[in-house]
C-alpha cells in the first residue's frame, strides 16, 4: 500500500510541480493517472519510488516512511518505467538488458533466465533475444525497456506513458500482461494520455491539473466529469460521444457511459423495449 500525504514539490524552488497531493493506493489495484502536459503526473510517480523526496508531506510505503529508505530499497517493491527507453538501455543485447534488472535484485541465473523468457514472450519480443537494443525501432525499444522492469515483477508497478509508439496489437498485449500481473496481486499504475487504453483496462482513474488531484474515483465517473475533460485537455472518448448522441434521441441513456459493454447493453435494452 502506498500513501501520499499532502505532498508538495517544486523544482529549484521556482516552478511548483505538486501542491498538496494526497492519495492512497491499495494492494492489487489497477489505476490510471491522467492530466494535461505539465500537470505533475511524472513528478508524482517519481515520489512513489523515492527518486524525488517530498519537500512537504510524506510518502508511506507499506507503513514505512520512504524518507528512511534508499531508492534501491524502494525499487525492490516499486518498479518505475520511464517515458524515454533510450535513457535506460545500455547493454549490447536485448537478453542482457532484460536480465540486468533481475541481476540487480539478486535473482539466480536460472530464475532470471526463466523470468526473462516469459516476459519477452508476453511482450512479443521473442525474436529479438540477441539483437542489440540500439538497432531496434522506437516502439520495440520501448517494449524492451518495459520488459526489463516488468520481468522483475515488483509488487507495485508504475509506468510512465507505456503506450507511446505502440500499435493496437502491441497495446493489447501490454494490457493483457498488466491485467495478468494484477490478477497475481501486483498493483499497477500508469500515466497516460491514451483514454481508450484507460477505459478498457483501468477501473480507477486519478485526474491531475496544476499539481493537484482534481478527481479520483471509478474511471467511468471521472471521465464523465466535464471539468476533468476540460482541465486535463482530453478529447472525449468515442463511447461517451456515442452515448451523448444516443441520449439526444433516447433520454433513458445514462449519464455515465464509458464501456463498450455498457453501451451495448443500453442499446439492447432500448431495442428490446421498442
Amino acid at each position: 500500500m502506498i500513501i501520499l500525504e499532502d505532498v508538495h514539490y517544486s523544482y529549484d524552488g521556482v516552478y511548483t510541480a505538486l501542491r498538496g497531493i494526497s492519495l492512497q493506493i491499495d494492494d492489487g489495484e489497477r489505476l490510471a493517472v491522467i492530466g494535461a502536459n505539465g500537470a505533475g503526473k511524472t513528478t508524482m510517480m517519481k515520489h512513489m519510488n523515492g527518486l524525488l523526496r517530498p519537500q512537504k508531506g510524506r510518502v508511506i510505503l507499506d507503513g514505512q516512511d520512504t524518507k528512511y529508505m534508499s531508492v534501491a530499497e524502494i525499487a525492490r517493491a516499486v518498479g518505475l518505467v520511464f517515458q524515454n527507453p533510450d535513457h535506460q538501455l545500455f547493454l549490447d543485447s536485448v537478453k542482457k538488458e532484460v536480465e540486468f534488472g533481475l541481476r540487480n535484485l539478486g535473482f539466480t541465473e536460472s530464475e532470471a533466465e526463466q523470468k526473462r523468457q516469459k516476459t519477452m514472450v508476453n511482450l512479443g519480443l521473442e525474436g529479438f533475444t540477441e539483437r542489440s537494443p540500439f538497432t531496434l525501432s522506437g516502439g520495440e525499444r520501448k517494449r524492451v525497456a518495459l520488459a526489463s522492469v516488468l520481468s522483475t515483477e515488483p509488487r507495485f508497478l508504475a509506468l510512465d506513458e507505456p503506450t507511446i509508439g505502440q500499435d493496437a496489437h502491441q497495446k493489447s498485449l501490454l494490457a493483457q500482461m498488466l491485467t495478468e500481473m494484477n490478477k497475481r496481486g501486483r498493483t499497477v499504475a500508469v500515466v497516460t494520455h491514451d483514454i481508450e487504453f484507460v477505459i478498457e483496462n483501468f477501473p480507477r482513474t486519478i485526474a491531475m491539473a496544476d499539481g493537484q488531484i482534481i478527481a479520483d474515483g471509478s474511471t467511468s465517473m471521472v471521465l464523465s466529469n466535464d471539468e476533468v475533460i476540460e482541465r486535463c485537455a482530453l478529447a472525449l472518448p468515442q463511447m461517451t460521444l456515442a452515448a451523448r448522441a444516443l441520449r439526444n434521441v433516447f433520454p433513458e441513456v445514462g449519464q455515465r457511459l464509458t464501456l463498450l459493454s455498457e453501451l451495448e447493453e443500453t442499446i439492447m435494452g432500448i431495442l428490446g423495449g421498442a
Partner: protein
Amino acid sequence: MHRLDPRSKLVLSIVCASVSMMFMDIIPLLMVFICLLPMIAAAKSLGRWATSMKGLGALLVFVLVFNTLLSPMEHPFSYSLSLAIRLVALMTSFSLFFLTVQPDQLSQALIQMRVKFEFAFAMSMAMRYVPTLGQEAYAIMDAQRARGVELDKGNLIKRIRNIIPIIVPLIIVSIRRALSIAESMESRGFGANENRTYMEMLRFKKRDWAVVLASLLMLSLTIYVRFFAGLPGWMLWGLPF
C-alpha cells in the same frame, strides 16, 4: 561591458590571460586578478563568476596540496599559491568573455572574423547543448536508479563500473539527437543558400577601439617589463615556506 563588441572583448580576454601566463610570482598575479575583478563587476556578473569559481575550488585545493608536497622548488607553498592564483586569474579572464557574450553574438563574431558559417554555427550549437546534456544525464541517472543500480554505493571499482549504465545511454541519445537535428535542419533548408545575410551585423565603435588599444598597450608594457626590464624587487616577494 555587455555592449562592447564581442571581438574587442575577445582581445581583452586574451591579453589578460597572456599577462597572467607571463608571471610566476604572487604580487604581479594578484595585481592582474585585482584589475580583473572590477571588470567582472562592471559586467554585473559577479554572482555567476563566484559560482564558477566555487566549481574551481576543488581543483585549486588539489593544485595547492600536490604542488606543495611534490614540487622541488625552494619555497613549495609560495610557488603553489602563485600557481593557484594564476589559475584563478586565467579563468577569470576567460569568464570575462564567456559570461558577457551570448552564443549567437559569438557565432556572429566568428563569422565576421571570416570563419566559415558552418563552423561558427557548430560552435554555437555545441554551447547551446551543454545544459541539455546535463538534464539528460540526470534523467538517465533516475532511470537507472529506478532499475536498482546503486550509484553511490560500493568500492571504487564498483562505482567506476556504475558509470557505464549512465554514459552509454548518454552517448547513444546524443548521437540520435545529433542525427535528428541534422535531418530537421536539412529539411528546413539549411545550407541551401551560399551567401547568408544577417539581420544584425556587429560594428566596431569608438569604445571598442579604446578597449583594444588599451589591451594592446598593456600587453606591450608587460612584455617589456617581463623580458627586458625585469620586475622590481618588491614584486618578487614570496612566502618563506
